[in-house]
């Protein structure tokens, strides 16, 4: 039956699409686009099927690759948590794939096939990391997604090469730390399967083992580098802000969120609540780091003049929220962290898409590009406002509810620094977006036309190429292929917010680790 194979098909479908796109040399751009859409839609379909099965049976699916029983064989585990993240990743990938029709073709006029092949390969890696139940398999998939993201980011050309190179060096250090950590765990336990590892580590004779602690530290450090937790975040803004529009929309929301998911997996599946918060008493330090990430990330975002730099610093701040939620050590904080993975994936996607559309139309990446967008691009502007509201945390958007859980968890744990950091970050975000909206409403359109420089983006594409100046109030809405995914994402922010209770009760509630 197809449904029995769903866990494997989630990963195999985009992998297959990627291979076809690589090998078939001369596909037309439309065919390549269609193939990519099919692949992403297939992943989403099978993710939904698998999640549906998990919820109806109320137990995790353990899929044995090639029918080799664990702990020798590699298994894919889909439970409430990984099922949710799989749906998030494949949905975001599908939306970005739809969005890419114009931007990807114009950024990659010569080798669109290869661009899409890397796109599909990146999604394969992310989905595989989410579904994998084996720590070494996770490492390989981590590197697959990292390598394809280097390729995609370097497509941004010009300054993107150097930024990508730095990301490559830092990313490799992160992945190698993770690999070294696996080595320590393997020496002590002789196992690589997550559940088997968890069972062996929980034995009393290994509770005080220094090697296990070092293994844990190295793995977590590696994941922190990968997810750009403050102060290890320096690579992220540069690498992501120089990328092409489609690449930024794909990578910025997903890579970091999946890394956070991996941190949760390591903390609560491989290790346990007791081990993390009793044997390794780091939570105070990590909460301070997370608070610093949230506040400093948002303040740095406020200081940026470049739209994409601003968004990437928001990503850094959001990482702080999720890390803090995971380390306050209670059920509300955990719920907030997981819910925020979903909410932040969608709201980052929403903002990057809207800003991408503005950049696409104006050819500018500075804040000045926002001038008059309510007149020129009304739908994009509304999408941007919804995304901004969610980042600030205005109900009924999902950003409000995730922050509500995070603050609740922090207050229960008595982590007042984190509560303060969350509130300050929201305040700063509000100031930032009101500044942006002020420019959008009251900015002078004439100034935009005359402003020299800044326009090293993607150029203005159709309509006004010949006759220079923009007509003052002419509507220049983004093309339909960009509008549709944008509107869906914005709508999903509100829908997710309205159904918070259901999401928490039916999905996240079941994944709360024992011991909270």
């Amino acid at each position, binding site marked *: 039956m197809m449904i029995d194979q769903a866990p494997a098909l989630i990963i195999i479908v985009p992998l297959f699409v990627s291979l076809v796109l690589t090998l078939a040399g001369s596909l037309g751009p439309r065919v390549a686009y269609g193939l990519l859409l099919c692949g992403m839609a297939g992943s989403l379909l099978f993710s939904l099927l698998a999640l549906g099965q998990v919820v109806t049976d109320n137990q995790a699916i353990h899929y044995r690759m090639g029918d080799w029983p664990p702990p020798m064989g590699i298994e894919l585990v889909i439970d409430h948590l990984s099922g949710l993240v799989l749906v998030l990743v494949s949905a975001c990938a599908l939306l970005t794939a739809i969005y890419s029709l114009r931007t990807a073709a114009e950024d990659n006029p010569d080798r669109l096939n290869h661009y899409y092949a890397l796109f599909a390969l990146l999604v394969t890696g992310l989905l595989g990391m989410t579904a994998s139940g084996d720590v070494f398999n996770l*490492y390989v998939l981590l590197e697959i997604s990292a390598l394809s993201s280097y390729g995609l980011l370097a497509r941004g050309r*010009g300054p993107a*090469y150097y930024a990508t190179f730095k990301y490559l060096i830092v990313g490799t*250090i992160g992945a190698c730390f993770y*690999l070294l950590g696996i*080595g320590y765990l*393997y020496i002590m336990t002789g196992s690589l399967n997550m559940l088997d590892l968890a069972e062996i580590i929980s034995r009393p004779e290994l509770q005080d083992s220094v090697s296990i602690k070092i293994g844990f530290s190295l793995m977590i450090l590696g994941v922190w580098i990968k997810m750009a937790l403050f102060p290890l975040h320096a690579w992220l803004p540069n690498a992501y802000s120089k990328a092409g529009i489609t690449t930024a929309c794909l990578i910025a929301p997903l890579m970091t969120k999946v890394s956070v998911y991996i941190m949760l997996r390591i903390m609560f599946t491989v290790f346990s609540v007791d081990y993390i918060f009793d044997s390794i008493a780091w939570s105070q330090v990590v909460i301070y780091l997370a608070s610093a990430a949230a506040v400093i990330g948002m303040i740095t975002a406020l200081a940026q003049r470049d739209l994409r730099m601003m968004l990437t610093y928001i990503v850094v701040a959001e990482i702080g929220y999720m890390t803090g939620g995971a380390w306050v050590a209670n059920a509300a904080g955990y719920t907030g962290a997981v819910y925020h993975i979903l909410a932040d994936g969608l709201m980052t996607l929403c903002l990057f898409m809207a800003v991408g559309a503005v950049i696409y139309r104006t050819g500018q990446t500075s804040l000045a590009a926002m001038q008059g967008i309510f007149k020129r691009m009304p739908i994009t502007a509304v999408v941007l406002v919804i995304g901004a509201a969610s980042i600030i945390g205005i109900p009924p958007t999902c950003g409000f509810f995730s922050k509500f859980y995070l603050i609740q968890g922090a207050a229960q744990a008595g982590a007042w620094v984190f509560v303060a950091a969350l509130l300050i970050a929201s305040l700063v975000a509000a100031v930032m977006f009101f500044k942006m909206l002020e420019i959008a409403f009251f900015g002078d359109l004439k100034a935009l036309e005359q402003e020299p420089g800044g326009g090293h983006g993607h150029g203005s594409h159709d309509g006004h190429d010949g006759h220079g100046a923009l007509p003052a109030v002419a509507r220049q809405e983004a093309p339909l292929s960009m509008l549709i995914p944008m509107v869906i994402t914005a709508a999903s922010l509100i829908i997710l917010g309205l159904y918070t209770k259901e999401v928490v009760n039916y999905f996240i509630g079941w994944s709360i680790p024992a011991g909270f």
Partner: protein
Amino acid sequence: MDEIFHFIIGKYNYWASLVLLFIGLYGMIAKNNLMKKIIGMVIFQTAILLFFVSIGAKRGATVPIIEFGPDKLPLLDATAYANPLPHVLILTAIVVGVATLGVALAILQKIQRVHGTIEEDEILEDQRR
């Protein structure tokens, strides 16, 4: 003194990979030339590969293929065989390392074409211009 000596000699494989690890890390962080950074990265990765390979080594052990004794019965003595798993893992990790190296070199080539140099300070200067 004797104890320290045993501490170092008894685990020399770990010490060797640790030293390589730090050489690689130093190269990646401190070197100004991007090619040297890549070399540092390769040393760093190799240190971890050697670490894994060394934990699978066993004196007097043979390949993990079941042998048959003179009475045609399989010799099922686990201590006589080496653990193949670390080596298999490392085969995969080597492939990952080679792929990373390839991507790094390709990007380096592009950097050289855009900026005309592979020295980090000169690239930063070029970007400011």
